[in-house]
C-alpha cells in the first residue's frame, strides 16, 4: 500500500495528467464505439455524400462517376433546359400556393379549435389522419376526385349545375392547383397541430388584458397573439418548405408529371436523369435543390447565434 502511494507521489504532475487523460479516454471508448454508426452516417453520408454530389455536378459523369471535369458546363445546360426551368417555376408556384394556404387554413383551424369547442379530439383526429397516409395514396385519391368524367365535377353537374367546371388535372395550366389541393389536404392537419400548440402556450393574462381593454378577439389574435408565436409559425414554415423541396411521390402518383411537363418538379428531374444515366447533369440539378435548404439552415444558424450573443450581452 505504502509503495503504491510512494509511487504515485513520485510521478510528476504531467505524468499524472496524461494518465488521467488516458483513463478518461478509455472510459469514453464504449461511447465512441456505440456511436460509430452515427459517425458513419454524419460524415460518410451527409458530409462525403453531399460533397460527392457537388463534385460530380462539375463532371460529365454518365452512369458511373468519372472525374472528367467540365467546369460549369452542366449548370449552363441545366438552366437552358426547358424542363428544368419549368420545374423550378412549378415548385415556386406549388410551394407558395401550398405553404400560404396551409398556413392560413391551418391557423384558422387552430384558432377555431381553441374556442373551447366540444369534440375537439374528434376534430383533431379528422384533420390529422391524412398525414398518416402515404403521399402516393393522397395522389391517387385526389386523382379520382378531380377526374373530369367521374369525379367531383361530374357529381356537382349531376345535381343540376351543368356548367360547373372543376377538373384542374386535365389542363396543363391548372394541374398544379390540383396538386396544391391534394397536398393541403394531407399536410394542413400538421400545421394546425403545431400552431394550436403555439396558441396554447400563450399566457392567459394576455387574454384577460385584451378583454379588459375591450379589444375584439380577432384583433387580439392578429395583432398580439400571432406576433407572440412567431417562433411556432417559423417552425411550421420550415417544415412546409422542407417538404415542398422534396416533392416527388405525389407527382408520380397523381399526374406522372403531366399533362405534358405541367407538373414536373426538380426532384423528378434529378431521379429521371439518374435513370437516364446522365449523372453529372442530375447532380447539377440536385446541387441546385440543396442551395435553398442550405441557405435556410445558414440563416437559422445566424439567427440563433445572434440570439445567443444578445442573451450573453444582457
Amino acid at each position, binding site marked *: 500500500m505504502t509503495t503504491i502511494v510512494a509511487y504515485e507521489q513520485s510521478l510528476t504532475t504531467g505524468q499524472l495528467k496524461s494518465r488521467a487523460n488516458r483513463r478518461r479516454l478509455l472510459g469514453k471508448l464504449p461511447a465512441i464505439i456505440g456511436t460509430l454508426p452515427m459517425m458513419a452516417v*454524419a460524415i460518410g453520408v451527409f458530409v462525403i455524400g453531399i460533397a460527392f454530389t457537388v463534385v460530380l455536378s462539375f463532371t460529365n459523369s454518365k452512369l458511373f462517376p468519372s472525374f472528367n471535369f467540365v467546369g460549369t458546363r452542366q449548370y449552363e445546360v441545366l438552366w437552358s433546359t426547358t424542363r428544368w426551368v419549368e420545374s423550378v417555376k412549378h415548385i415556386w408556384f406549388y410551394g407558395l400556393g401550398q405553404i400560404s394556404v396551409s398556413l392560413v387554413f391551418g391557423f384558422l383551424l387552430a384558432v377555431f*379549435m381553441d374556442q*373551447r369547442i366540444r369534440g375537439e379530439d374528434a376534430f383533431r383526429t379528422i384533420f390529422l389522419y391524412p398525414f398518416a397516409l402515404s403521399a402516393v395514396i393522397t395522389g391517387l385519391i385526389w386523382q379520382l376526385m378531380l377526374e373530369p368524367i367521374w369525379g367531383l365535377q361530374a357529381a356537382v353537374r349531376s345535381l343540376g349545375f351543368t356548367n360547373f367546371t372543376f377538373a384542374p388535372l386535365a389542363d396543363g395550366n391548372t394541374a398544379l392547383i390540383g396538386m396544391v389541393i391534394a397536398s393541403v389536404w394531407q399536410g394542413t392537419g400538421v400545421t394546425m397541430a403545431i400552431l394550436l400548440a403555439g396558441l396554447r402556450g400563450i399566457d392567459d393574462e394576455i387574454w384577460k388584458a385584451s378583454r379588459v381593454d375591450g379589444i375584439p378577439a380577432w384583433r387580439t389574435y392578429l395583432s398580439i397573439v400571432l406576433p407572440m408565436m412567431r417562433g411556432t409559425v417559423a417552425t411550421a414554415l420550415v417544415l412546409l418548405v422542407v417538404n415542398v423541396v422534396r416533392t416527388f411521390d405525389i407527382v408520380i402518383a397523381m399526374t406522372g408529371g403531366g399533362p405534358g411537363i405541367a407538373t414536373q418538379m426538380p426532384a423528378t428531374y434529378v431521379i429521371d436523369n439518374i435513370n437516364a444515366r446522365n449523372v453529372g447533369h442530375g447532380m447539377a440539378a440536385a446541387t441546385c435543390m440543396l442551395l435553398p*435548404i442550405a441557405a435556410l439552415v445558414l440563416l437559422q444558424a445566424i439567427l440563433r447565434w445572434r440570439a445567443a450573443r444578445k442573451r450573453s450581452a444582457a
Partner: protein
Amino acid sequence: MTALAPTSIGVEPSGPRPRHITAGRIGIYAFLIIAALFFLLPLWVMVITSMKSMSEIRAGNIFALPMQPTLDYWVKAWSSACTGVSCNGLAPGFFNSLKITALSVPVSIVIAMINGYALSFWRFRGSELLFGILVFGAFVPFQVLIYPIIFALSRVGLFGTLPGIVIVHTIFGMPILTLLFRNFFASLPSELFKAARVDGAGFWRIFFWVMLPMSVPIAIVAVILQVTGIWNDFLFGLVFAGRENLPMTVQLNNIVRTSTGTVEYGTNMAATVLTGAVPLIVYFVSGKWFVRGIAAGAVKG
C-alpha cells in the same frame, strides 16, 4: 429547430371564454364541420368506390353509396391485379413492406437510442458537431444523396437488396430519431446517471439497466413514427429495394399505372384502401402517441 417539440398539445384551451350559444358559436362549428367534410370526403370516396362495379361508377356520382356493394375488387387487388410484370396483386408488396418495416424499425431505433444516450451523457470531443451535421441532414432533400448512396451500396453489393433498403431507412431515419432520443435523455435528471456511475457501471451497463427501461414511452413514439414512415415510403423502396423486395406503395402505383384498356377504379381504390390500412390502423389505435410523434416526425418527409 430542436426546441420546437410542442409538449403542450393536450393542454387546456387558452382562447377567449365562450359565452352562450351565439351566432359566433354556430359559425365556429359550421367552419369546423365544413373543414371536417373536406378532410373526410376523399376517404369516403376511396372506400365506397372500392365496392362499386365499373358500370355503377359510370352511371352514378362518386359520393353515392354503392347500390350493390361488392368485395370482388378487394380480392382482385389483393391477389390478382397486374403490375406490368406479373399478376399477383398487392399481396407480395404487402409481405415485402412487412419485411422491410420489421427489419428497419428495430435497427434504426436501437442505433438512434444509443446515439441519443451517448450525446446526452457521454459527450466526447466533436460529438456536438456530429449531432449538428445529423440535424442538418434532416433537412437535405433526398435526391441530393440518392446517387452517392446508390454508388456506395452497389460497390459493396447491397444495392437492390433487403439489407440495402434497411440501411437506407436507417440512414434517413437517424436524424429525427436521434433528435427525439437526445431530447428525451437530456430531460432525465443527471443524478440518475451519476449514481449509476458511482456504482461503477459503464456505458453499456447504464444503457441496458437504467436508460432502456426508462425510455419505453419515447420508444413507442419512435416506433409509431418509423412504422408509418417506412410503410408509406415510396422513393427509397422504388430506388433501393430491388425488384424482389418492392414495397406495397410501389406495387400500388404500378397496379394503378398498368391499365389495360379502361381504367378500373374499383380495383385501384381497393388497392389504395389496402395499402393505407396499416398506417391508418396505427394512427387510430395510437391516437395521442401519434400526435406526439408528429412534432418531431414532421421534419421527415
